[in-house]
């Protein structure tokens, strides 16, 4: 039963994409910008976890928390320094700045830690469980569970808390939100903080699955997760979840049944087809133009 194990591995990879995609989609929903430096925040998170584990011998949970702390701070600082001054600028200027921040982080990492890759220690026990004839590693199970927990917590936060309600308000109408007394800049900071904290979680899962850490490691997962966010409907949180999972499954199936080299091309081809049929993505909202 190869099919089942491919499916579960696809869900595992898709879970990582989904967690990263949440960062893209939340920032887009509230700040209306594409934060192309998001993938590189993952890379920084992976380095932090690597040093915490391999150099300082911290226990795994401490390493994860440390990575989250650094990434959250980094996300907020990037927003303050690079994006906030451009609040009134055209979206093209913001996009170019985001790409600039991405290169800055990659090259900064290269200067600090060299371009050669480092081997991420395997912390999660290499064992696996058997489901019928399919075997699934503990890491894959942990990844899927993490994604589910993240989704539940985030959905509750967005829908049930006052800050969550303010975030939804800002995504709909910033001017009206200001009239409610909502500090929109603070809400944008919180959004970047949450997205970057999630990127740190993704970085540890990613580096445990593909155990090498190097300055450009965030690019490809970043682009794939961005694709997942667009695929599911950018701005939609359930969309990022569904988009991430489907993308992961397509990628693993394409690798298993068609071709390893072509798997990325197939993933992007599917994206193009979906967007041709449904331009707002799977769960994207219809854009209503009201007169």
């Amino acid at each position, binding site marked *: 039963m190869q099919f089942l194990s491919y499916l579960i591995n696809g869900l595992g990879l898709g879970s990582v994409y989904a967690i990263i995609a949440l960062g893209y989609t939340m920032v887009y929903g509230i700040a209306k910008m594409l934060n192309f430096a998001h993938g590189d925040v993952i890379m920084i998170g992976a380095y932090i976890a690597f040093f915490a584990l391999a150099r300082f011998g911290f226990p795994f949970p401490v390493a994860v928390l440390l990575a989250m702390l650094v990434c959250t701070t980094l996300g907020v600082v990037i927003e303050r320094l690079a994006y906030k001054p451009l609040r009134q600028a055209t979206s093209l200027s913001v996009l170019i700045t985001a790409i600039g921040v991405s290169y800055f982080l990659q090259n900064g990492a290269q200067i600090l830690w060299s371009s050669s890759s480092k081997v991420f220690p395997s912390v999660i026990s290499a064992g696996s469980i058997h489901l019928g004839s399919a075997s699934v590693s503990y890491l894959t199970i942990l990844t899927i569970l993490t994604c589910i927990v993240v989704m539940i917590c985030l959905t509750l936060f967005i829908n049930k808390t*006052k800050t969550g309600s*303010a975030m939804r308000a800002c995504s709909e109408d910033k*001017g009206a939100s200001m*009239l*409610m*007394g*909502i500090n929109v800049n603070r809400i944008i900071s919180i959004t970047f903080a949450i997205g970057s904290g999630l990127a740190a979680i993704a970085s540890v899962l990613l580096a445990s699955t593909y155990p090498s850490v190097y300055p450009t490691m965030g690019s490809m997962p970043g682009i794939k997760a961005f694709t997942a966010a667009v695929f599911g409907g950018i701005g939609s949180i359930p969309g990022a979840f569904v988009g991430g999972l489907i993308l992961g499954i397509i990628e693993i199936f394409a690798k298993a049944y068609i071709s390893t080299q072509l798997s990325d091309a197939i993933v992007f081809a599917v994206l193009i087809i979906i967007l041709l049929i449904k331009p707002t993505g799977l769960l994207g909202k219809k854009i209503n133009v009201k007169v």
Partner: protein
Amino acid sequence: MLKVTDLKVKYGMIEAIKGISFEVRDGEIVTMIGANGAGKTTTMHAISGLVKAAEGSIMLDGTELTKTAPHKIVSMGLAQVPEGRRVFAQQTVEENLNLGAYLRKDKDGIANDMEEVFQLFPRLKERRTQLAGTLSGGEQQMLAMGRALMAKPSILLMDEPSMGLSPLLVSEIFRIIREINDKGTTILLVEQNAKRALAIADRAYVLETGKITLEGSGEELANDERVQKAYLGG
């Protein structure tokens, strides 16, 4: 209470407000009438801090609002019912009302005020769990007013509350504006429906292409020949 002096607002090179001065005293209903594009909404946005003043001053109880962040202005007791209602369509009636009380911490007070809003607008109570986007235009206007009242403002700015409503609803809205004022809230009302607005206003201003051209009591302006010609179809 609110005193605007030589206010100028520019959009790029275009001067939308060309140096206006007016004031709203404690307990009054003051109305500003004028045609489309006269600068009424721009003035309202400048007071709430949504657009920056190029020159001049806006004082609320001795604090300069042109240098104050929009959310701080709300915390000083100034709320606004914006033009076009701008309710949060994807959130329920109740969530919208709670957003109106965003800066308040007094849970009991918020619950009390929500009951008061429901007394003022019983329709909102029936629809409290419904998404605001599914309400009719009149109901959305009621929600926008209720939402602003949830901030417990001492001064309420209202931008075209009667726009697009049926005559029956317009009467209802103006009756409620009176009632809100009677309960002690100062009101600055911007309207195209000059007749109705002048009828309830203590004092009024006429705004024409970014300048105030006339001012007086509501009654004086309602009887003014120029106002009758330009705004009352007389």
